């Protein structure tokens, strides 16, 4: 199997506190991988270790089949990233920031910058100073910077932070488009399930620095197909009953007089009694 990112028992300890412990991550080529976890669960720390900003206490990171060490960082050339908050040289203009980024990566294509700016609908701001930007604009500019060099792996830490609903949709479409047309692998993170399940193919759940579960979305929807179907005369009344008397919320009205209940925590007899 062709893995873009592989980590072997990745552990990070800071001042005796275990931030990330024993994470074995496998990201396949061409998929969108979503990190899900609470605030402070260690998503960002893992991402920082993948981009070489932090070095792991024990364990190792493998990018494109090559180990990432302090001296060997060539894998980073093929990665674009925003970690935590889009950081720029605030006193420089947007264009200068992007040019600096390109020069550091040894990428010389003048057209690519304008192309990338058009992709996220961010035009006419090239000569403005970054410190005048709003958070949403900075977020977009950060995404521009990540995609300019057409990397093979893009790491986005909470890409929809501070964006308006239209912006969120734009970014979602952009991620899907880049994934489909250029075959770029994505690693996203979020603490909102709904946001991730709309784009991700596979989800890694992180809790207290441990990778609890790695599942594909297809598996989840398969698990969720068991349901009880009820036929009633008065749909509204029975829904009210189900919601307030039995505290069931995961259900759906199909046709006019049928209700499907996906929440199977209560036994069937309990429902039929009411």
């Amino acid at each position, binding site marked *: 199997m062709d893995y873009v990112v592989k980590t072997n028992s990745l552990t990070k300890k800071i001042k005796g506190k275990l931030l990330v412990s024993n994470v074995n991550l496998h990201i396949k080529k061409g998929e969108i991988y979503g990190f899900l976890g609470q605030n402070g669960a260690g998503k960002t720390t893992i991402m*920082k270790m993948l*981009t*070489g*900003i932090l070095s792991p206490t024990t364990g190792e990171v493998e990018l494109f089949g090559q180990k990432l060490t*302090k*001296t060997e*960082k*060539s*894998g*980073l*050339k093929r990665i674009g*990233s925003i*970690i935590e908050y889009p*950081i*720029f*040289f*605030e*006193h*420089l203009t947007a264009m*200068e920031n992007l040019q*600096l980024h390109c*020069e*550091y*990566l040894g990428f010389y294509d003048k057209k690519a910058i304008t192309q990338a700016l058009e992709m996220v609908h961010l035009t006419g701001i090239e000569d403005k100073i970054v410190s005048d930007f709003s958070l949403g604009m900075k977020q977009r500019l950060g995404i521009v910077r990540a995609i300019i060099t057409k990397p093979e792996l893009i790491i986005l830490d909470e890409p929809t932070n501070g964006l308006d609903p239209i912006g969120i949709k734009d970014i979602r479409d952009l991620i899907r488009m880049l994934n489909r047309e250029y075959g770029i692998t994505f690693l996203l993170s979020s603490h909102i399930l709904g946001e991730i399940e709309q784009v991700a193919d596979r989800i890694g759940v992180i809790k207290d620095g441990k990778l609890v579960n790695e599942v594909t979305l297809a598996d989840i929807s398969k698990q969720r197909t068991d349901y009880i179907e009820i036929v009633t005369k008065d749909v509204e009344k029975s829904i009210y009953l189900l919601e307030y008397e039995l505290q069931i919320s995961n259900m759906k009205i199909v046709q006019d007089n049928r209700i499907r209940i996906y929440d199977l925590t209560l036994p069937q007899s309990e429902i039929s009694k009411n």
Partner: protein
Amino acid sequence: MVKLMELEWRKLRRKLILSEMIIYWGVLMFLPMFFIKMVSAEFGQSYSTIIQLMMPMQLGFVLFGASLINQVVIDEYKNKTISLSFGYPISRKKLVMAKALLSHFLFSFVR
């Protein structure tokens, strides 16, 4: 390495540093003349008085060096842009070396 230094230079607030340079130049070049010509003519006479003059000038250079290091190294940590540089496929030793060399270069340029 020259390329890295150039990039490092492009990150800075160039206008600020250049104007700072000019001010230091002006003051430090003007002061000794002022002392020798205006305050007392004896200042140019003996070696020990020259040393006395040199002291504050040296201090001025040290101050300039300090503000350079602040802009080249400390500001970047403060604004967290350093994590950006560390995310590039260049070893940290080289990055820090480029910073040190650039500030040395600018410093010796003024002197």
